[in-house]
């Protein structure tokens, strides 16, 4: 494990293989919570937090419980339980410790359990055989990629209100087309070479 290796994981997760625009993970909250800039930012921050923690915890669960007992085939089940418990725990902790942040996140916190970016990053960590530090970095930077994507998208969507388009495209379709064009611009990063 080298420093450049970690940087390439980070850059890959944020720009080149962005979770939203090139891996299609976490589209539901991306579409659902991007109508306003401030809620989008809140959701993005919460996702960074949960993805980082989930990556670290699931790595430990996989390494020290599932592999030790030869239960690798229960990975999916174990991971979703860990994530659900983690989200619940974070919610309780925030409620007591940081009520202001808890208020700001509101309903979006429990919704993170069903965010496929979280389960996705954990499964990918296992698939790529990342070690503890690499898993943690991939989780956090994957969340940063999500934040970048959702903030960019929300700022475009706020302006979309003034645009003219066919009536049938109202709501979701025009949002999807916008996201498609954003994905097109993110494709530019695929030429990025890291050392």
């Amino acid at each position, binding site marked *: 494990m080298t420093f450049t290796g970690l940087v390439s994981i980070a850059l890959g997760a944020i720009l080149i293989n962005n979770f939203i625009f090139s891996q299609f993970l976490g589209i539901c909250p991306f579409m659902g919570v991007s109508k306003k800039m401030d809620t989008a930012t809140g959701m993005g921050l919460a996702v960074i937090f949960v993805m980082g923690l989930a990556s670290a915890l699931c790595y430990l669960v996989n390494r020290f419980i599932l592999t030790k007992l030869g239960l690798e085939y229960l990975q999916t089940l174990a991971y*979703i339980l860990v994530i659900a418990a983690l989200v619940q725990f974070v919610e309780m902790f925030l409620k007591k410790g940081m009520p202001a942040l808890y208020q700001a996140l509101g309903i979006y916190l429990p919704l993170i359990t069903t965010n496929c970016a979280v*389960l996705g990053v954990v499964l990918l960590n296992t698939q790529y055989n990342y070690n503890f530090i690499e898993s943690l970095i991939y989780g956090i930077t994957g969340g940063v990629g999500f934040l970048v994507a959702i903030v960019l998208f929300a700022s475009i969507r706020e302006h979309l209100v003034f645009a003219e388009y066919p009536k049938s495209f109202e709501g*979701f379709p025009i949002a999807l087309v916008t996201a498609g064009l954003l994905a097109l611009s993110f*494709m530019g990063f695929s030429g990025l070479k890291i050392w």
Partner: protein
Amino acid sequence: MNVKKQFKEGLITQNPVLVQLLGMCSTMAITTMLFNGLGMGLSVLIVLTCCNICISALRKIIPNDIRIAIYVVVIAGFVTIVDLLLKAYVPALSASLGVFIPLIVVNCIIIGRAEAFAAKNTLGASTLDGIFQGLGYTVVLLVMCIIREFLGKGSFGGGLLDMSTGSLRVVFDGSGSGVQLFPAKFAATIMILPVGGFLTLGCLIALMQYLLRKSEEKKAAKGENVK
């Protein structure tokens, strides 16, 4: 129990992807060739039907406060079964769908139907709901695959149909190259990249909204005449 009504709801008026807007991640991610679309559609159909049966049968004894947790465990159990079966018998499909098979666990269609339908309805109705909603999802996947493959590669039935020996064969191991309808060099590769997924699904949902609005208007006009 109304079979015809449920069929129509699953495929058209309450289509999980085009109308309820659920499960979009996998819809856009894997629809690059027909083989993937069919495999994913059938996997979701099986998981959805089994979960609906299970949850509907248990609906009277599941405590209300922890129902979501129980749903997730039931779903994860069935997804693991399907995942292991695919790895054993159709490894090509498992490799090409990758992480999206285990991700069926967090596919909103399944937990959505469990909460909205199976938890309130009888066993028979829930089974049918699972089958028809699964079919609705599969049909959308197939349509997306056909459009994207045609525009992006100029072929049809990638992975499923094979022309390499000169005659048309159906293969089930994902090795088929599909039927080339026009030379690949004229195809817009962008349609099989992520961008194409967003654009195709956007246009399909727009088309669906247009058709549903048209039929609403027609019904409204008919209503006026009757009055």
